[in-house]
């Protein structure tokens, strides 16, 4: 352990500098706003998890004995809406990105602190709309809101849900805008672009997608609301419109949105792998530019969601090839993480366990994506559980693993406390096992032809479904344990000290928790990121 230098008088940090509720709700401090977001996304994660639990409970038997079909439709719709728009999209950027970006670039705050606070309130307003939908009876369109079902036939609260997502989208735009300007203009003296931590590069790429993609879903939902609410039609053939146009507009955002979820997670994993291998990430520039490449190509692949939706075969071929191309920068990252660990002094800590999990699960999720982006295969697999398993491997196995890894990695910085090592490792392993037991059987189910979004299924699928439901309960346990010990650590955890992991990152050079202005004096950067010095390599735990 690094022994902390003797402190004469404990200086105030961002947590105890003020303690009233008002000081939290009106704060401009990016660290406090990150904490506000953490509380909010954790709440919505629990809500979305509840719906997932109900879905798995219903699917434990082939008959529809827990809920009726219309209730089941609402369950998977609300699960999707809450998890995608209220948890996955804001999770890493708005929590960890908010907290860490200014620290990593040696700034006092993000470029627009007031906009940052506004984005949280906008997000909460969107969340309130969706909570209203939940409490008054839900919506049954699927999170994709396909027309004309959503605009002319659905009995759910489509308008309120659409407005909620519309509003929450603006918080995402504000966060992305803030990050872009912050990275461009707030870097500490000497911190050139190629000295930036790769976490920052990943967030830069994410922000590009947020800024360019989110307005498109916003205008699409605006048109949806006009059509449903005022019969000013754009998509329903009854008004002369074309429902496939809706699908194009929807996926123009919603496919890149997948990269909003996974890119920040990749940034987290890069930091973790480097720190716990005590090695500079292998191929820094390749990792940096692969983030940008994923963001750019991510915008050109939406058509692979429309292979069976009257899109021309020629267009399908182009989208298929472009979808394959996204695999290249993704694979570069996976190769570079493993190459970073190769001959590094690897320490198996809790964050590292999550990073291992991420690399394995993301690889499975990514490779099964290639099955789906080949047109012939997709005709067989489309709208089956294979698709469900694929995107859960990327979003849960990828994005949430990265989120949990990041929370465990930076928890000592955010709170100044260490969590219990044994429990955290056990829960990381439970999450990994529970996850695979939940979702691997779904690949098999989908391959055998079980369609998604049905609450009854033929009896021959029951064994695999029971395995999946059992896995879900293990996974839930794996999520519950960190929730308990992280709370516990706030009061009883050991003091972490400024740099418990021995990382050269700028965020670890200030005290934990950081002071309100992040650094006592603005740091001057004189070397590349990830310059490990011998004495910084220490064993923890």
């Amino acid at each position: 352990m690094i022994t902390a230098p003797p402190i004469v008088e404990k200086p105030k940090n961002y947590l105890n500098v003020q303690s009233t509720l008002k000081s939290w709700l009106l704060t401009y401090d990016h660290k406090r706003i990150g904490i506000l977001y953490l509380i909010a996304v954790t709440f919505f994660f629990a809500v979305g998890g509840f719906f997932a639990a109900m879905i798995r409970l219903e699917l434990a038997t082939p008959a529809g004995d827990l809920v009726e079909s219309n209730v089941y439709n609402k369950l998977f719709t609300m699960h999707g809406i809450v998890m995608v728009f209220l948890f996955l999209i804001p999770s890493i950027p708005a929590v960890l990105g908010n907290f860490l970006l200014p620290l990593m670039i040696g700034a006092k705050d993000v470029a627009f602190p007031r906009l940052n606070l506004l984005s949280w309130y906008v997000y909460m307003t969107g969340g309130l709309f969706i909570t209203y939908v939940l409490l008054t009876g839900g919506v049954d369109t699927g999170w994709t809101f396909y027309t004309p079902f959503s605009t002319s036939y659905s009995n759910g609260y489509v308008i309120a849900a659409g407005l909620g997502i519309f509003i929450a989208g603006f918080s995402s735009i504000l966060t992305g805008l803030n990050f872009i300007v912050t990275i461009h203009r707030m870097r500490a003296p000497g911190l050139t672009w190629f000295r930036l931590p790769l976490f920052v590069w990943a967030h830069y790429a994410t922000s590009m997608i947020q800024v360019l993609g989110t307005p498109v879903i916003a205008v699409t939902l605006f048109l949806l609301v006009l059509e449903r609410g005022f019969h000013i039609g754009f998509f329903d053939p009854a008004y002369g419109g074309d429902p496939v146009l809706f699908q194009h507009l929807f996926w123009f955002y919603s496919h890149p949105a997948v990269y909003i979820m996974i890119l920040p997670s990749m940034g987290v994993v890069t930091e973790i792998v480097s720190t716990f291998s005590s090695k500079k990430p292998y191929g820094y520039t390749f990792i940096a530019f692969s983030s940008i490449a994923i963001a750019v190509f991510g915008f050109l692949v939406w058509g692979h969601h429309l292979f069976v939706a009257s899109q021309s075969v020629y267009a399908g071929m182009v989208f298929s090839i472009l979808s394959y191309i996204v695999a290249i920068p993704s694979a570069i990252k996976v190769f570079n993480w493993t190459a970073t660990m190769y001959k590094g002094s690897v320490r198996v800590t809790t964050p590292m366990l999550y990073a291992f999990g991420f690399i394995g699960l993301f690889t499975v999720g990514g490779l099964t994506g290639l099955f789906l982006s080949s047109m012939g295969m997709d005709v067989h697999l489309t709208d089956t559980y294979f698709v469900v398993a694929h995107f859960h491997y990327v979003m849960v196995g990828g994005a949430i693993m990265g989120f949990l890894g990041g929370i465990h990695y930076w928890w000592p910085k955010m709170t100044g406390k260490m969590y219990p090592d044994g429990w955290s490792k056990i829960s990381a392993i439970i999450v990994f096992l529970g996850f695979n037991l939940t979702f691997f059987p779904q690949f098999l189910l989908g391959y055998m032809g079980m369609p998604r979004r049905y609450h009854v299924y033929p009896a021959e699928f029951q064994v695999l479904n029971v395995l999946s439901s059992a896995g879900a309960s293990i996974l839930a346990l794996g999520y519950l344990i960190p929730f308990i010990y992280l709370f516990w650590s706030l009061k009883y955890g050991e003091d972490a000290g400024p740099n418990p992991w021995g990382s050269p990152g700028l965020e670890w050079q200030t005290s934990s928790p950081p002071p309100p202005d992040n650094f006592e004096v603005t740091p001057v950067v004189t070397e590349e990121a990830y310059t490990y010095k011998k004495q910084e390599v220490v064993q923890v735990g």
Partner: protein
Amino acid sequence: MASHSLALQHHFEDAEQQKDASTIGMWVFLLTEIMFFGGLFLAYFVYRQEYPAAFASASNKTNLLIGAFNTTVLICSSLTMALAVRCAALGKKNLLVLFLILTLLLGGAFLGVKAYEYHDKYVHHEIPGAHFDCEGCIDAGHTPLFFALYFGMTGLHASHMLIGFVLLVILIVRAQKGAFGPEYHTPVELFGLYWHFVDIVWIFLFPLLYLIDRSGVPK
């Protein structure tokens, strides 16, 4: 932060960094706006490509004279806005306030004319819905699409004008109090960018909605 001037927020090193940050922020915001309107423009191009005859005959229902008048009004308001930015940079407070008020009046005139046009459409049953009736139109089944896009696009544009209207009032009050001078007038400059952007959107909307097939034989 005693050493900082009032206009400088404490997390910036100096005024130049603050101004740079705000300017980049505004440009990125305008980028999001382009994408926002982009969805509607895409829908327009798809449907006009599919149903050219319906679009041409429905477009002839719009009032060319009023549309052209409003275009002129809006371009003039862009001129007064540009002059306002210049006056702010030169520190001419009274002229700044005058040009901002002129911009406000021209913007108001545009919105007033737009409201008249909407009313006219309402009277003639040209709002899509149960009472829609496009008298004498070709391919009448697809003409509601044109008017849906007309109201969607001009409505979104008008709502941007309304937001600009509110921001202008705030700017005028601040300018009157002497908040802007050669040293610091970023808000005026950035609002100018926003206002010109909203104008440019209209420059595209006008030909797309009002000027289709005007040269042909009257139908």
